[in-house]
């Protein structure tokens, strides 16, 4: 790892100032950043430690919404009693993320901002499109973990488990910095990379995620997070789905269906939501919603299985919630 200057920011304003310096990176849990630094994919001259920043800490119940500071670890989210009771899909998503050691260090903010897992991006000797090169090697190469939706020039998928769950809960992210400042729906926080902006969130170089707030769900609201992996645990999602439904009697009121592992950003399946809205769930409707979720999919050579997997996960999640 290349050496760097280490500074510890006492507050948000100071962190943002420090990050404006040339080639600085923010450091929270470090579980993703340090792997990239060891491979020299990122070679910052300065790391700005965020962990003493009070504004980014804590889980608070603010009457009509829950606030989770960006520095909250995945372990804290997983084991927080209030989160487990009121927002089970978030606790489930945290539970299914990484390993015990990584959850003890990794933070909410870092989980949302983590880099893609694409092996071409992670290869120290390749300058793929996302790293400023000409070519997205995955499109013609080994693409079994890559996107089936979104048609972006880089086909790596957004790897977070928390993001689909939080978007299904209508979470709002609080940002602070030079280029973005204020509250934004988490769904809009993630972007598909394009020629003008080869990145996956709206964050500029000195912008930070301060935390997220989640509105209090209706009494009739139920949710589930399902994740399909190559092994039973400690793996990134091949496909995941977060579903949160408000019921009006026996019918589905509002629905949120968000897929992970299928696109360059968490993929809200609005057409699948529309299929079930106002209807009584049953097997064939769930099947129809699953099909709608992947209707626009265009898989590559090695990832066609994701289309079937996503379709069936959506169906299974809906049927689980209808039990």
């Amino acid at each position: 790892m290349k050496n760097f200057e280490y500074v510890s920011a006492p507050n948000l304003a100071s962190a943002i100032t420090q990050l404006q310096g040339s080639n600085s990176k923010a450091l929270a849990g470090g579980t993703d950043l340090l792997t990239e630094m060891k491979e020299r994919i990122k070679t910052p001259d300065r790391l700005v430690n965020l962990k003493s920043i009070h504004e980014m800490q804590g889980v608070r119940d603010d009457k009509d919404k829950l606030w989770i500071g960006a520095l909250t670890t995945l372990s804290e989210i997983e084991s927080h009693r209030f989160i487990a009771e009121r927002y089970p899909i978030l606790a489930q998503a945290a539970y299914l993320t990484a390993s015990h050691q990584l959850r003890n260090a990794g933070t909410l903010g870092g989980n949302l901002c983590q880099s893609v897992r694409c092996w071409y991006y992670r290869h120290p000797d390749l300058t793929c499109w996302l790293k400023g090169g000409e070519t997205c090697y995955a499109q013609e190469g080994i693409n079994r973990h890559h996107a089936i939706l979104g048609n972006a020039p880089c086909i790596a998928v957004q790897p977070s488990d928390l993001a689909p769950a939080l978007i299904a809960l209508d979470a709002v992210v609080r940002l602070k910095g030079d280029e973005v400042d204020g509250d934004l729906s988490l769904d809009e926080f993630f972007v598909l990379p394009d020629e003008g902006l080869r990145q996956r969130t709206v964050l500029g170089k000195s912008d930070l995620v301060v935390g997220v707030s989640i509105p209090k769900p209706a009494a009739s609201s139920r949710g589930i997070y399902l994740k399909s992996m190559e092994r039973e645990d400690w793996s990134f999602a091949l496909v995941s789905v977060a579903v949160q439904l408000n019921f009006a009697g026996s019918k589905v009121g509002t629905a949120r269906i968000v897929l992970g592992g299928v696109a360059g950003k968490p993929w809200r399946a609005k057409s699948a939501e529309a299929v079930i809205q106002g209807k009584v769930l049953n097997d064939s409707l769930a099947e129809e919603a699953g099909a709608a979720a992947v209707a626009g999919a265009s898989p590559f050579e090695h990832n066609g299985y994701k289309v079937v997997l996503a379709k069936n996960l959506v169906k299974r999640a809906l049927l689980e919630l209808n039990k």
Partner: protein
Amino acid sequence: MLKASAKSLVQLQVNGQAQEISIEPRRTLLDALRVDLGLTGTKKGCDEGTCGACTVLKEGKPVYSCLTLAIECEHSRIETIENLAKDGKMHPVQFAFIEQDALQCGFCTPGQIMSIKALLDQNPKPTESDIKRAVTGNLCRCGAYPNIVKAALSAAERLRRGG
């Protein structure tokens, strides 16, 4: 504001002892333990947070020391495998690993043991699935997993009987 790029003095609390080392910011906790403090019980496997051989306890919680900067451990309690045996007597988890034949090459063992110790500190009566979950982040390429689970169950029982 703390600023450092060249070597600076960092105070660590390792296995109950205050230690002062002079390190660059890029020094991982793993290298600080092994190189600066000579505590080579903690192993370097992948050095990228994938294998778990480097697991140590930070404030009682298992973390990968290869993905932890030593400079960030100032004032944190760090516990390594070297702290388990007391007065020449093995810790019940160590004893159980031998008794249950829970290792072959032994390279992953210190990390496995630290993960299990952290579990038993929190949960004296774990189920088999609690144990499997606790060591999810520790890979064993020899495949000693079934006996690792047996060892953890046996250690838990021994600890409940008072060690």
